[in-house]
């Protein structure tokens, strides 16, 4: 597209990432940047390899294939949702840490320590001591696009999924909500839900109307 000053620039695609960027020949600088990022990501891979690793405290070396029996899995994604769990649900009496996700991307890095501050980026798993099949995940770190699928496979891959009910807690800015009226007049915060066909229980809030969508890790 031509700008006001007459120069031709590539207009950003509404899709976010126009495929043009992928198909275009990388400049030497792009190549260098990509190599450095890949090197950094490689350096932060833990011993088992891969960009993400999920370390479970209940898995000893011998039974690496043992699956965690899980009936309810609550995942809080993002700082707000993680803070909600910290404030209202988690405590050291009823819940124990059973796992941690170690990952690195250009936005944040998590470590394998389970002693975290609320301002850290972390991804921890807790288990209800009185009912060990209830699992909770607090993920305040950003999981990059190309890590989301891996996160999913590694976390859910460790679970026995029969009869499993998953609840995902997340937040979105009100300004992103698409509605007939202006978001200025909306009473916020408000809850919306998406559920699969298989979810038979009562949902505590209205369902998310089109054309609103959810993306990234909660969507994955």
């Amino acid at each position, binding site marked *: *597209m031509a700008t006001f000053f007459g120069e031709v620039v590539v207009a950003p695609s509404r899709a976010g990432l126009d*495929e043009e960027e992928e198909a275009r020949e990388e400049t030497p600088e792009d190549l260098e940047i990509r190599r450095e990022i890949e090197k950094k990501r490689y350096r932060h891979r833990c011993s088992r390899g891969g960009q993400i690793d999920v370390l479970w405290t209940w898995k000893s070396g011998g039974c690496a294939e043992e699956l965690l029996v899980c009936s309810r899995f609550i995942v809080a994604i993002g700082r707000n949702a993680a803070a909600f769990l910290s404030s209202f649900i988690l405590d050291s009496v009823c819940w124990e840490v059973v796992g941690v996700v170690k990952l690195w991307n250009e936005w944040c890095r998590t470590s394998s320590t389970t002693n975290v501050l609320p301002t850290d980026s972390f991804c921890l798993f807790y288990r209800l001591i009185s009912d060990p099949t209830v699992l909770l995940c607090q993920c305040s770190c950003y999981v990059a696009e190309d890590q989301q699928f891996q996160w999913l496979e590694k976390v859910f891959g460790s679970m026995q999924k029969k009869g499993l009910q998953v609840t995902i807690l997340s937040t979105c800015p009100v300004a992103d909500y698409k*509605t*007939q009226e202006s978001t200025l007049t909306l009473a916020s915060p408000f809850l919306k839900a998406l559920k699969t*066909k298989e979810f038979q229980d009562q949902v505590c809030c209205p369902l998310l109307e089109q054309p609103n969508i959810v*993306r990234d890790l909660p969507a994955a």
Partner: protein
Amino acid sequence: LLQPAVSVGNVGQLAIDLVISTLDMTKVGYFYTDCLVPMVGNNPYATAEENSTELSINAEVYSLPSKKLVVLQIRSPFIKNKYRPFCETLLSWVKSSKCARVVLLSSSHAYQRDDEQLLGTPLRYLLTPDLEKAVGGRVQELNWKEMEKVAAYPGISDTDKVLHIPGGGITKLLFTESCSKGIQMAVLLKFCSEGDNIPDAFVLVNYLNEWLQLIKSEVSTSNNSTDPSSQWKIPSSWRLLFGNGLPPALF
């Protein structure tokens, strides 16, 4: 198999939305893939409260057995460096499911047109050699224009001519791979720019309809003109494409 390329203005995807919505196609499956950015929402083609709560994700397959039509809709961009694996997986699925032919709806940057392309129709087609044999004649009858090849090195006169589809996303890759794999593929594309691409989608889907006759195009006898836009059903999810309502306090 009818599918879009994620391309400039998302025209292919919008056109596919019109096809699925108008023909009231049934969802028959989805692609579980790590190549596309994840997204989820409620049914984008909902017509009533009852059918609005079915979840919808980024790559879903719809079918209409009466027309032997299968449609793939892609709803999010490719994750960096994942478009190649996606194309490979897609084409191997096309082969293994014995799909007869693939029609790809796409678009290309309007500003990259040369002087000749600026005149006349903004619609173009491409056919793989295998499909050329089967439908080349029909395409001639329709008076369609084939996508021109451009010089590999613009400015130098006697260089090879290559296919160049700027803004077309995976279009070129899918097309060239289909040529080499003997897959019957047609590409239908429109030159356009980013903006309100709904009219572009209508133009593209009518172009497709000239050939595939998915819906009957009616000619209004009273004023002797076609209004093709009215025969396609706009999905409910196209609401609010350009933002919410305005706060009254603004005025």
